[in-house]
């Protein structure tokens, strides 16, 4: 195997796309060839850089797409059931519009507009009053056995809107300080299937952190949610409580255990705001394992301000 062949195969070695025999030959060559080993290290660095070419999905985007798809699927299904005769008629008329006599680009548009108008009237006629959504009060919502699918703030009136999964969909509105509304949100904050929903819910719960059970939910999400976006949102919700012993202890745990350096950075920034000795032990442990320069620097400074040693004994 020549060096040229080996170096051309390096990307596929890293992707695990070589056969057993190809990999064997390559490794034998690498064992004996320093320039190719150097080329492998460069390829590793290149791959690590490629990792940064991906953009994290904006959290609400998936949620919005799902909502829009559901509506469009419903529209299409409704159209198929109620307006089959119109679709057939339109199908028969359509080739005529495309003949040269109707070749002007304006024709299909005009006819399309007429068709849309007729569809609108037909749709209104076929829609029964029962399908028109009128938000019920929460009194009519059975909380147990109901899955929260979407949450969103209503328009500037301090209410939240919650979409539940039942045999049919309903919306409930209520204030955040309402225990039953809160119960729905707390359940949504733990929905394992939908990180987008958890982010939205934690965002809403941030406004109600006076309540101990909400604070506890945020602490749990910050420490144990598997989605970094949710953990970050929960941490931001706890900012006002950075002096609270329980929150400080949770922040120290985040510093020691969270794999996301962005979240650890936010955690140390919050702990620094209140120079209290309760987290000294955790900070000393952190100095032994943290490799992020910024976090190390902030931790060292905080320990120094607290007259504590940088090392643990």
């Amino acid at each position, binding site marked *: 195997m020549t060096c040229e062949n080996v170096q051309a195969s390096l990307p596929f070695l890293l992707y695990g796309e070589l056969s057993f025999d190809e990999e064997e030959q390559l490794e034998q060559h690498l064992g004996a060839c320093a320039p190719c080993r150097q080329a492998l290290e460069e390829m590793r660095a290149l791959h690590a850089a490629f990792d940064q*070419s991906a953009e994290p999905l904006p959290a609400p985007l998936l949620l919005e797409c799902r909502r829009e798809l559901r509506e469009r699927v419903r529209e299409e299904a409704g159209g198929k059931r109620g307006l089959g005769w119109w679709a057939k008629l339109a199908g028969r008329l359509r080739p005529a519009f495309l003949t040269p006599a109707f070749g002007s680009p304006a024709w299909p548009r005009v006819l399309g507009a007429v068709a849309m108008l007729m569809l609108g009237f037909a749709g209104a006629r076929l829609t029964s009053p029962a399908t028109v959504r009128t938000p019920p009060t929460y009194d009519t919502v059975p909380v147990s056995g109901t899955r929260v699918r979407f949450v969103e703030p209503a328009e500037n009136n301090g209410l939240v809107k919650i979409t539940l999964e039942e045999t049919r969909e309903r919306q409930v509105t209520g204030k955040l300080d309402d225990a039953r509304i809160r119960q729905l949100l707390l359940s949504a904050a733990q929905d394992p299937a939908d990180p987008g929903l958890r982010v939205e819910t934690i965002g809403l719960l941030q406004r109600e952190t006076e309540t101990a059970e909400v604070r506890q939910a945020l602490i749990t999400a910050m420490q144990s949610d598997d989605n970094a976006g949710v953990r970050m949102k929960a941490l931001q919700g706890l900012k006002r409580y950075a002096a609270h012993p329980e929150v400080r202890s949770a922040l120290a745990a985040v510093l020691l255990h969270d794999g996301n350096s962005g979240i650890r950075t936010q955690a140390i920034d919050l702990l620094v705001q209140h120079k209290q000795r309760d987290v000294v032990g955790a900070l000393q442990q952190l100095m032994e394992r943290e490799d992020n320069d910024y976090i190390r620097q902030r931790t060292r400074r905080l320990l120094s301000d607290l007259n504590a040693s940088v090392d643990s004994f």
Partner: protein
Amino acid sequence: MDEAGLIRAAQSGDEQAFEQLVHSYDQAVLRLAYNLLRSQEDARDIYQEAFLRVHRNLHSFRFDCSFHTWLYRIVTNLCLDHLRKRKVRKEESAIVETAEGPRDRISTIPESGATGDPERHMLSSELRARLNRGMEQLTPRERTVFEMRHHQGMRLRAIGEILGTSEEAAKNCLFRATQKMRAALGEFV
């Protein structure tokens, strides 16, 4: 219910089964579209169009290939069409107008990760700009193969099957993409 069961239920009109099927794949599909097109609006359009096509044509799915392959054929065709049109129109300049004046498109995407380290931030911005330039130099097919292999972790054989080509052709495509990206990053890596 396993995937085949979900597909059969969705084929017979069970909308909940269809939704469950969508939710098994839609995050990865959206991520692919967003990474390839770098625009929330375009990614949203691809998402809607892809899953609406799945919904309309699911009755004709005969299990001749995996559902994953079938879905990704739809998604990649839509993305490739979009990238080709964009290339022809040349309307997607790398420079976009913002409130602070013209800026590189990539720098308008909010940055994730640690904040507060100016040197790291500068290095990271420069790296992102170079990566962006490298991506711009890839053909739509090279870009798609690169995304599917590097970020979605698909095997080259599966990528070939999805794109209607051989594993070897997908491999060559990935090789060219890697070379171009390497040239764009230059001495930076």
